[in-house]
Structures are given as C-alpha cells and as structure tokens.
C-alpha cells in the first residue's frame, strides 16, 4: 500500500471487506454521502436540549391537552450539528464563488452586518415593548429611512414591506388608494412591459387591477409608440423596471413619466435593479411615484437560501399620504412610531392600511444600514459604477463566443440568448448544468421572456477582475466545446454535484411534499 511521509495510507485499503473503501467515512468521501432525513435518523424520545424539571404545578388547560403524538424526531446536539453541517456542504453559496444570477444581485454579505444585527439592543428587543425602551431601534429605522429617501430623492418611505414583491404590493396599493381618493373607480388598467418580473402582473391583480402588456422594441426597451397607444382614461399607471430586466436603462423614462402623469396615471418603478444606479441616479428625479428597494440586493443583506427579503417602498409627494402604517416620526429628541390609522389620519395622512404585524424586517434594516454606512455616499456611487463596469466587462469578454441579446453596453447585467448554441444540440439548460461541473453557479436562464433561451449574467460589484477572467475563460471554453461538437458533457451534466440532474417533471406530476414512514409515500392530490 502506498504510504505518505507520516506513514499513513494515501488511498483506501483495497483489501478491506468493505469493497475497497475504509469502513469509516472520512475525508472528501464524506462530501458525497447521502444524508438521511431527520425522520429516518432521529427518535421522538431523544432531545438535544436540557430543561429544568417541572415542578408539577396544576395545569389550567381547560381539558384541551394534546392527546395524540406529534411525530417529531429529535437528535442530540452532536448529531444535529453533523446533520446540518453535512447538508450545508451540499449548497452553493456566494462565499464559495460567483453567483451570477441575473436580476437576483448576489453580492458579498459582510459579516460586520451580522454582528451589528445581533447586538442585544437590536436582536433582543420586542416589537411591542414600550416605545420609551426602544428609542435606539426607532432611531435606526429613522436613520435608514433618511438614507433611502436621500438616495432616491423622495419625501416618504414605507419600511414595513417584508420582501420585494411585498414592496410592489405596497406601492400599487398606494396607487389604488390615491385613485379611490380621487373617485376614479374606472382606472383599473395597469401597463406592464413584457420584460417585467412575473411579480409585477401578479401584484397588479392583487390590487384589483388588470394588466395590459407593452411589447419591447428591437433594442430591448419599452416600445414608445405601443406605450402611447395604450394610454387612456382607464389607465391606473405603469409598472416599469429600471434598469430593466434586459439589463438596459430605459432611455425614455422621463418621457414615460410625463406621459403617464398627463394621462392621469401613476408611475410604479420596480427597484429590483437599483444596485446599478445607486448614488449616481436618484429615481425621484426620473419622475417615479413609487419604488420598492430590495435591501438584500442593493444593500447586501444575506438571502439565506430564499429569504428573508425586505422591500421598503419610497413614494412621491403625490402618494406619500397613502403610505401604510406603521411609520416612525421624530418629535424633538424623541422617536415615535405611528402604529394606528386613526393616529395617522389625525395628522392628515390617509394610509391604505397595515400590511404586516409589527414594523417590518428590523434584522434586515440593521444589516442594510451597516452596509450603507460602510460605503458612505462616495462608496455607494462606486458600487453602481463597479457593478456596471463588471457586467460590461463580462459582455465584452464573451460577445465573441456567446450571442448578446442586444447591441451596445449594458447596465449591471449582461444578457445573452441561445443563438450561439443553434444546431449544437446543447440547450440553455444543458449549458447551465455544465457550468456546475466547472464549479460555477449558473446564471439566470430563460428570463427575461422577451429573449429566446435567455442567459442573464449579473456579476455584481464584489467580483474581482481576476475572478471574472477565470469565469469568462470557463464560459468561453464551454461555448467552444458546444460548437465543436463536444456535447456529451452537456447532456450528462452535472456529474460533479452532490446529485445528478434532478427530475423536476416527476416532482410536479407526483408531488411528495412531506415525509411519511410507510413505503407508499404521500402523494399530494393532483
């Protein structure tokens, strides 16, 4: 057997009874093992938490004691640690490498932000403890609101929306409330460009509007003639993303704002891509009436595998009175949170209501403000510039081998289509899965819908030039491999991931949403 300098085997003992592998799991092989579910490993009589004994005080439950078992397995602390650490190793993450999901803005998550959010004065305060005992927390919300209003040049911000889509809802509800206040019950049509996020039309419908799609023109922006033709007395407003989901700045945005206002409608701007212009362009100067800001995107709060988000929504003077409760106000040296509509109305406001219990995503506010203060007004401007520079660099490096969807420069994300894969037999999905084998998270695929086989790459400002060079080299290599007929690697990809390509159709046709002990797995009715 081969031995290293310490006299230890450098490869598994081939004579072992375990079929060539050591009978203990160690080293990198641990990365590949199937991890059972807690329901297959734990026991309901096992716990990883120690509690004091009960005293036996007489209960006061009114005869409503639980009679059935729950079926919750427990694990001791070391077993639980291993279970979740092993699972964590089956995840890609921004701390492992570039995460170029277009329109998702996966940038570095500074750990200072985590430390600040965990200060007991922020992490361990209750939303309903007396306001006199949370003056610093209210001040922090007020300070963050000030930064957001200054960066957008708007007079009002609603802090409570819990995510970007929730912020959209907040903005569109304010528009609905403003129209209702004007007695304009006939304005129910919302113009939504084809390239909009699916949340935009879904949001408009939740506010009682219906959607009218505006097509994109040949250079990926709102078709102005089509837009003008759709204006009319029944138009409530427009929902526009800027920079848009093709990675482009809407050149005619001021004209769009003027025209929608002249037509009596409001301008909702989807602020998901604020990242690209923060510190360089103030959306309030573009004529918007409402815009949500995804704190996790522009201001780096970690997304934790799908959330939490946070979607504060800024308003123009026209919509400010309709912003929801709660909101903070400063009265002399004291901070106060207005929590009830009645109190707001006494001040002359007309809030459309309350969107959520308590005050919003405080834990995200702390992280976002920590990030903002770290950059400052000068650094945030640099953020926008570097995010745009990085995206254009990727576009320039790859435009010879992949096919850019549109001519010219882009903002903070580079959009390609699948023309370069034509006749290769390799699909956009295959190409993405092959990237996994090269150690990269794929870009956003098939979105925006206006482009066939779209591949939307957003590097963000926290990628280095050398990192982008490596990334571009890999994509160049894959594109060349596809074109030269080396396609087997695409069809089988990924082979180096914890699992091979997963059957998503099967999951949808035969949904198994919870684990059950019996052999016949539960099947959601379908």
């Amino acid at each position, binding site marked *: 057997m081969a031995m290293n300098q310490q006299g230890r085997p450098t490869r598994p003992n081939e004579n072992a009874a375990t079929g060539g592998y050591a009978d203990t799991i160690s080293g990198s092989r641990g990365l590949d093992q199937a991890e059972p579910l807690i329901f297959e490993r734990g026991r309901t009589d*096992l716990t990883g938490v120690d509690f004091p004994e009960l005293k036996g005080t007489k209960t006061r439950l009114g005869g409503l004691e639980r009679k059935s078992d729950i079926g919750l397995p427990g694990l001791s602390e070391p077993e639980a640690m291993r279970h979740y650490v092993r699972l964590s190793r*089956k995840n890609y993450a921004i701390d492992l490498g570039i995460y170029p999901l277009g329109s998702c803005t996966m940038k570095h998550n500074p750990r200072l932000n985590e430390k600040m959010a965990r200060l*007991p004065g922020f992490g361990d305060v209750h939303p309903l403890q007396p306001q006199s005992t949370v003056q610093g927390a209210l001040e922090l919300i007020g300070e963050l609101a000030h930064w957001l209003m200054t960066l957008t040049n708007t007079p009002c911000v609603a802090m409570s929306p819990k995510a970007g889509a929730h912020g959209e809802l907040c903005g569109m509800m304010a528009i609905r409330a403003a129209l209702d206040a004007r007695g304009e019950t006939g304005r129910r049509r919302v113009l939504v460009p084809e390239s909009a996020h699916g949340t935009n039309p879904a949001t408009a419908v*939740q506010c009682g509007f219906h959607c009218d799609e505006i097509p994109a023109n040949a250079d990926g922006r709102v078709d102005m003639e089509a837009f003008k033709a759709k204006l009319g007395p029944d138009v409530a407003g427009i929902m526009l993303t800027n920079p848009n989901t093709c990675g482009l700045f809407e050149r005619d945005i001021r004209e769009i704002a003027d025209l929608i206002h002249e037509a009596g409608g409001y301008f909702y701007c989807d602020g998901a891509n604020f990242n690209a212009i923060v510190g360089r362009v103030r959306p309030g100067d573009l004529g918007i009436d409402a815009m949500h800001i995804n704190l996790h995107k522009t201001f780096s709060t970690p997304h934790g595998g799908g959330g939490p988000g946070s979607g504060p929504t800024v308003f123009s003077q026209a919509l400010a009175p309709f912003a929801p409760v709660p909101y903070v106000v400063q009265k002399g040296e004291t901070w106060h949170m207005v929590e009830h509509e009645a109190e707001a109305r006494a001040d002359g406001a007309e809030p459309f209501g309350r969107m959520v219990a308590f005050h919003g995503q405080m834990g995200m506010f702390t992280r976002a403000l920590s990030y903002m203060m770290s950059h400052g007004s000068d650094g945030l401007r640099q953020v926008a510039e*570097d995010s745009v520079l990085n995206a254009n660099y990727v576009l320039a490096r790859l435009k010879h081998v992949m096919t850019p969807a549109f001519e010219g420069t882009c903002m903070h994300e580079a959009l390609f289509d699948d023309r370069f894969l034509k006749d290769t037999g390799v699909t956009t999905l295959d190409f993405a899965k092959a990237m996994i084998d090269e150690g990269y998270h794929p870009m956003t695929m098939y979105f925006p819908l206006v482009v066939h086989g779209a591949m939307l790459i957003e590097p963000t400002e926290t990628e280095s*030039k050398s990192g982008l060079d490596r990334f571009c080299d890999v994509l160049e290599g894959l594109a060349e491999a596809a074109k030269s007929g080396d396609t087997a690697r695409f069809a089988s990809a990924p082979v180096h991931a914890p699992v091979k390509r997963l059957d998503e159709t099967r999951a949808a046709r035969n949904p198994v*949403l919870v684990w059950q002990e019996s052999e016949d797995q539960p099947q959601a009715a379908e």
Partner: protein
Amino acid sequence: MRYLPLTPEDRTEMLGVIGVSSVDALFADVPQAARLDGPVNLPRRATELEVERAFAAMAKKNVAASETAFFVGAGAYKHHIPASVDHLIQRSEFLTAYTPYQPEISQGTLQTLFEFQTQVARLTGMDVANASMYDGSTACAEAVLMAARVTKRSRAVLSGNLHPHYAEATRTLARYMNIDVAADAPVPGGLDDVISQIDEETACVVVQNPDVFGGIHDLRPIAEAAHAKGALLIAVFTEIVSLGLIESPGAMGADIVVGEGQSIGVGLQFGGPYVGLFACRNDKSFIRNMPGRLAGETIDADGRRGYVLTLSTREQHIRRDRATSNICTNSGLMALAFTIHMTLLGEKGLKHLAALNHERAVELADALGGVPGVTVETGAFFNEFTVKLPKNAAAVTEALIAKGVLAGVPASRLWPDGGLDDRLIIAATETNTDADIALFASALKEVL
C-alpha cells in the same frame, strides 16, 4: 473600499477591453438631467470600527429583553435558543445561498425545507405545509385569499380575538380582491360568537388559538358549524410552542392552519424577520391554490433521492397575472433556524418546553392574581393571559419599567379605541425565573 475588489488599474484595463474611455460612457442612456455630478448629501464611508461605535451608541438606547424581567408577548415571544442554531444558520453555505433555482447544488437548502414542511405538517395536524411565508400575519391574510379561491366565495369572518395586526393585514390584502371581511369586537376572557356570523356566502372563519388574550378554546364546534355551511376553518396561532401541549388545530377540524414560528429558533428582532407557517389538508384544489414555495421529493438521473422546488405552475414567475399570489420568496433562513431548533428539541423536548411555559404562566397568574385589585380574566390559557387592572394599563407598564419589569402589552396598544385601557396582556416563558415572577408581583403592588 474594503468590499470592492477592483483597483484603479483594473478599472482602466477593463474599460479598455470594453472599448470606452470612462465609466461615464456606460451611463450614457441615463438622461442628462438625472445624472448626479457628485455624491449625494450623506456621510462618507466609515471604517468597521466607526460603524461598530455608531451602532453600539444606538443599541445602548434600547432595553434588551435579556436585561429585564420580561413578560411581553402578543404575537412575539422571548424563548431561549440553543447556541448551535445561530452557529449553523451562520454557516456560509446556508447564510449566503440564494433561492434554490439550481437544485443539484442546493440540496442543503432543499432537504431542510422538506424536513421543515414535514415538521410543520405534523405539528399542526395537517397533511402538507409550504416552505414558509413572510410571517404569521401575511400567512393569515394569504390563507383567507386561498379560502376564497377554493370555495369561490367572497366573505371572511374573523374572530374578534384574532391579533388585530393579523386582522388588519388580512383586511388590507383582501380589500381590493373584493373579499368582504366581517369581525367581532375583541372579548378578553371569552371566545366571541363567530358561529352566528357564518352564512352560505362565507368562505372561511378565522379563529386564533391561543387567542390574542391568551385564551385557549375547543375549535371543534366552530369547525362543525363552518363545514355545515360549506365554509373552511382557518386556525391561527402566534405561539407555536403551545402545540407541544394543546390539541392540534388539525385534530380539531381546521382546514388551513397558519401561524408564526418565531418562538422556535428565531429571536425577537423587534418584529422581523419572522417565519410564517402555512399548512393545509391534502386536497387537489388546496394544493393548487396554496401560496408560496414548496419543496418536493424526486430522483436524479441515477435514481437517487433528491429535492427540488415544485408545483411552480401556481407561481408568479409562470402564471404572471393568474398566479395564486405575488409572493416570490420565503423566509428560508428563518425556516432553517426553526427546523434546526425543532430537531434539537424533538417531540420530547418540545413537550417539556411547552409544559415549562405553561407552568411558569400558571405561577405568574397566581402571583399577579394575588395582588389587590388585579383580576385574571383568562380561564384556560397556555403561556399568556390577560389581567384587568384598577388603573390605565399603559401607565402601569411605564411605571414598571423603572422597577426592572417589562410587564406585557397594554390592550390599548393594539386597540386604541377598544375600551380596554385597563387590560394588560402578559406572557410568561421558560426564560422567566421565580425571582422575575416575584419581582413582577411586588412591583405591580407598589405601582397600583
């Protein structure tokens, strides 16, 4: 700038590759009038040390729950969270991952969501659960919309003892969907009579248990009355630890169960981020109409088990204006914290924790009930109850701060015009010591 890797030389070189002379050229599409020449009027960049000092100064102005005898509840609860929970959720691979759009390299997130869904379904006594909502209040509002879709009816009946923030969030979301929302007045100590409001147009009845005053109730008569008229029962909870001790909503006939999972794994955080739980019966129309994300089991190309996000045809990114909701995220990290803490507890630990909470609350109720002029109004309760005071409860609460007690939530904080100014909603958990309880009782006696 410590977070930005590009050097000035890098930038120059990159501009050369792009073929433009300056970064300004990349902003050429921005209308001239909207371009800022210089930085906005905000402070310039701060070092890590400077940020820490500024935050410490703000944090110091707050009274942290761990620094006082703490009895504040009404929808958010102070519990002890094992150290390993925060350690695990701060692992880079969980903390800094995105929505698992590429399942082959997101199995960690997806498997934990599948485990989470199974835990939530079992706790609530339902068949299936989703991968979490923003919080309990938005889960409640979405449940009402789902009930309207499923029953094709447009009237919701809310119990007056539903947390008023939940009721307001529900009204806000339902308003423009043309769903009529009826509600009773809040009734400390009892359950309002929602049954009499159920009619043939009613899509759902929404009842909180334990209710906002802390009272616990048998939901079975309400479920029967709702079902008799073709309506659904939506059961809401804000304190999930209660499900370790009292009968599950599913066992009492609920069709949809929603609530707040903050008590398990998620700290107070001044109101968010929290984790909304959403579970329902396994019924074709239910699953298809469910809001939010779902993790499902499948196999890979080698036939090995794996997990993916599934049934996305309900979602906004496929269905756009015909989607079941506009939600495009979940509370992934909070769901992870929940599932880790719940795994550490296990059934044995959860039941013990629930019993401890109840025991502390009973002892507190007895101690406060012994203070002259104080009446405990909640008969059957879990870890929260309401007292009637001889004075304004908000004033009493303020007076108790100086004595080191954060006493609870005055009902007037939730209903400023509810005629409940003398009521105080008080929660006890396993974090309250005998000394805390004795201090509360003696301090209350002094300020009354």
